[in-house]
């Protein structure tokens, strides 16, 4: 589904990703862990098409398309979804109206009919309950005045509405208390399916107790330096990242 090969990306001339490769098959959940500054969020941003980052070399194939050739909106239409680490507050733009516009723009891009008001409302009700998102919040301005947990729940709610093929969760656990984390993880788990893949970027192992990954990758200095199963996450939690750094630095040296 997703095939990243030797990806290099930089921001303001500084190289962050230095030859990252990763393959994700349908239905798989991949966790990307790593110390701060290793490039985890950069990977998420680059995959979603954030123009602040410049891809200098490498390729990203998504379902047979060159993902890097597509704009952020086209990637969304193709089935990529990014749950932001810091969802943006947009005063005056209603959560519901914007979601409807987003859904219809994708439908139009795919040559489908616009969603009916009835069907849309039915889905809103259904999907909001997945993450226990209050009705009032769905009608408010996008993320405006939402608590940290509400913002993250809103991200998962949007994900549920847009039904992506590949969901990238960028440190969705950051700033969440255990109750909020459980709600968010529960929402994600209900959206897992044989066709839908997840890339879960996180600094902590805690989230992975709830969203159990098939693979755990350790990102360090812009590259994946270690790959394992879910046990790797536990090992990292116990031993920290220092031993990974030492191992990786020894290889480069």
């Amino acid at each position, binding site marked *: 589904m997703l095939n990243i090969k030797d990806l290099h990306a930089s921001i303001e001339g500084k190289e962050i990703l230095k030859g990252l490769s990763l393959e994700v098959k349908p239905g798989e959940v991949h966790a990307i862990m790593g110390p701060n500054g290793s490039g985890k969020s950069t990977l998420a941003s680059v995959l979603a098409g954030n123009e602040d980052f410049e891809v200098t070399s490498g390729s990203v194939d998504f379902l047979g398309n060159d993902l890097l050739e597509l704009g952020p*909106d086209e990637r*969304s239409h193709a089935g990529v979804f990014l749950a932001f680490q810091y969802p943006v507050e*947009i005063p*005056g733009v209603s959560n519901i109206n914007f979601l409807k516009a*987003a859904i219809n723009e994708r439908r139009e891009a795919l040559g489908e009919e616009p969603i009916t008001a009835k069907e849309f409302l039915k889905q809103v009700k259904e999907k909001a309950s997945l993450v226990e998102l209050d009705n009032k919040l769905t009608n408010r301005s996008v993320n405006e005045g939402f608590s940290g947990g509400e913002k993250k729940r809103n991200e998962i709610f949007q994900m549920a509405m847009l039904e992506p093929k590949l969901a990238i969760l960028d440190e969705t656990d950051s700033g969440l208390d255990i109750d909020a984390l459980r709600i968010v993880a529960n929402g994600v788990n209900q959206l897992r399916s044989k066709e839908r893949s997840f890339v879960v970027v996180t600094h902590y192992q805690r989230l992975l107790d709830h969203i159990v990954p098939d693979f755990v990758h350790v990102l360090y200095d812009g590259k994946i330096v270690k790959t394992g199963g879910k046990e790797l996450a536990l090992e990292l939690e116990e031993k920290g990242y220092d031993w990974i750094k030492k191992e990786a630095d020894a290889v480069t040296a």
Partner: protein
Amino acid sequence: MDLAKEMTKEQAVLDSMKNSYNHAVADSFSTTSSKSLLNLESLEFPTTKVEYWKYTRTGQIANKAWKFGNLDNIDLPENLPVAKYRMVFVNGHFDTQRSTLPQVEGLTILPFSKSEVQNSIAQSEEDIFRAWNTAMPQDGYFISLAKNKAVEEPLQIVFLYSGENTISQPRSFVELAENSELKISEFHIHSSGSLAFANAHSEVIVGDNSHLKMDIVQHGSEKGFHFHETFGEQGKNCTYTQNTFTLSGNWTRNNSTIRLKDEHSECNLNGFYIPNLKEHIDNHTIIDHEKPNCESNELYRGVLLDKSTGVFNGKVYVRQDAQKTNAFQSNGNIIVSDTATMNSKPELEIYADDVKCSHGSTTGQLDDEAVFYLMARGLSKENARKLLINAFAEDVLEKLVNGDLREIIEDTIQTKLA
């Protein structure tokens, strides 16, 4: 001897205007007019050296031989909302044919020249354009509403401007007696391609316990000039609301000066502007709190495209006697291109010590992060930008007194953003 060489440009324009002036001034107003004509002998065109005109040039107006126009047959805009009461003015002439004025007890509506207005509440010796209008006034509306009367339906007033080097000087006056209520929807529309100068002057007097609510929609032309001055005086426990939407126009200047002359009254001045190409829009407001316990609110929002320029200057005076004043002023701007300019200057002058006043001005680009966020959800860049700009405009749109005007305003915004 060539006399023209010795003439100042002020005299030259004035002569051209005098020679073409084709309006009757009401007897009641003639003394005021004559006085203004005398004042004009010493008034000059303002330059950018004067603080009040620092960012708006009048040179293009000063160098034209303006002539008064006629009651031409110009079409009303197709998307004009249906209205029960309608007054139409063409180049400063009252268009009886296309006006509809049902009789309502207590409501007097006349063209200005048929009224018995004697004086001006504005000082005509201060400004050349104001003195022009006072010296050679044309027809705007005269509206007087009697005590204890409320008119539910908004009165629609349409000013049309057209021609080449045509000046129009509509003068309007509205007075609300005690405990009355009125809504006005005003349109100022310059014909596309015309080179007209609209020098409009309005005066409003809001009596005790009365409410006057006004929407003004301005549609200029690519070459024309639009100047609109409003002077207002408010009594006790009353409200004056004015929402100005400047949708287009090569050159627009709005001056609104409101005096809060008695206690417990409220003044709301709001505005939205969206200039593109090389359009220039300037909003100047003065709210004068003379007495205690009054409130004023100002919200001006602008979206500046292409090479346009915008100016906002809002001045609030709180006089020594005006304790417990609440005055809020906010001007926000989004600069959409690299070549647009905004000059924003909020000013407060406070002489009382127990007041709540705030003013703020923000000018910035469209939020890139928000655009990316919306695009990541599937919106095209164009639609993401539109959504953000519409949300920004909505803060002023929601103040509309007459909701029927929404469509005409939103359509222009969409066209300009396309």
